[in-house]
């Protein structure tokens, strides 16, 4: 009984139409949450958090660099998981998810590299260092670019989906490399200042704005990924009855 309803839920989850209806309200909520959190977090981080006793005010770059780097990896993990599910259960929706995460992930990874470079100049004395974490993040960027190019090159939708799912899945080995790079190699990056079991290595006036910014970046990602997924669903289902019903209801408003 339970397994039957679970199975039904699983199939529902893979249905583009159901997903489209479900996310109608989520998009707006995520968008507004992102706007509020990002403005609040930036103002707090830029104007109210105390300066670092060693780095001075350049440490404020942390409030955009750390969330960008976290999000760059999370979006890739999202693509890897979607790829795995798509390959095993043949869901339509997972390829939609990959196509939506891809452009955002690429841009955010570039942003993480750029903000790191701008932070590195006053802190490490150089725009670019061949540092373990920097290089593995550069590899992450090239993985995004590679999958993007792959998708552009393959015309057949089914083959494109399977090929990018496979590369997304295999590429996730890079994620633990980024994570442990600071322990495996000599590095200029500092080790994690936060953990679930330890107290943060900075005062709360410094890490609370970071928390707000991290939440803001994730809300923003949810917003953009949902908008892109919904667009892709409409494109793929064009001509379906429910799509023309939806557009009519929309213009009727």
């Amino acid at each position, binding site marked *: 009984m339970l397994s039957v309803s679970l199975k039904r839920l699983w199939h529902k989850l893979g249905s583009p139409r159901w997903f489209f209806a479900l996310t109608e309200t989520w998009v707006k909520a995520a968008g507004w949450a992102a706007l509020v959190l990002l403005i609040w977090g930036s103002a707090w981080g830029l104007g109210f958090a105390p300066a670092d006793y060693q780095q*001075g*005010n*350049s440490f404020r770059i942390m409030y955009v660099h750390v969330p*960008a780097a976290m999000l760059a990896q999370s979006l890739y993990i999202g693509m890897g998981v979607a790829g795995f599910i798509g390959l095993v259960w043949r869901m339509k929706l997972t390829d939609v998810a990959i196509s939506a995460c891809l452009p955002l992930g690429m*841009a955010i990874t570039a*942003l993480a590299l750029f*903000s790191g470079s701008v932070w590195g100049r006053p802190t490490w004395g150089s725009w670019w260092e061949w540092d373990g974490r920097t290089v593995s993040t550069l590899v992450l960027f090239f993985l995004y670019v590679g999958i993007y190019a792959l998708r552009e090159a393959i015309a057949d939708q089914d083959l494109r989906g399977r090929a990018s799912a496979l590369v997304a899945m295999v590429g996730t080995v890079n994620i633990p490399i980024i994570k442990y790079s600071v322990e495996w190699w000599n590095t200029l990056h500092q080790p994690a200042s936060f953990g679930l079991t330890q107290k943060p290595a900075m005062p709360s006036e410094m890490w609370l704005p970071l928390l707000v910014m991290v939440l803001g970046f994730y809300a923003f990602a949810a917003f953009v990924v949902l908008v892109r997924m919904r*667009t892709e669903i409409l494109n793929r289902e064009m001509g379906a009855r429910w799509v023309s019903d939806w*557009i009519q209801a929309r*213009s009727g408003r």
Partner: protein
Amino acid sequence: MYFDSFAEFLQMGKHGFYVWTAYGVTALVLVMCWLSARGSFLKTTQRLQQQADLVQRGVPSAQHTENRK
């Protein structure tokens, strides 16, 4: 406010250039990500709308002309 004056806030000690560059580029990237997602959504809904209008005006077989992009 951590800073004593607005000028000091802009100056960020001696790191104003780096801090404002990082935040400026971040804002730019996020806005561009949003606008490009919004742009393709609007393009798609406009196309759907045109199709729906054709159907309403009774143009035959307009509904299934653009099944795949």
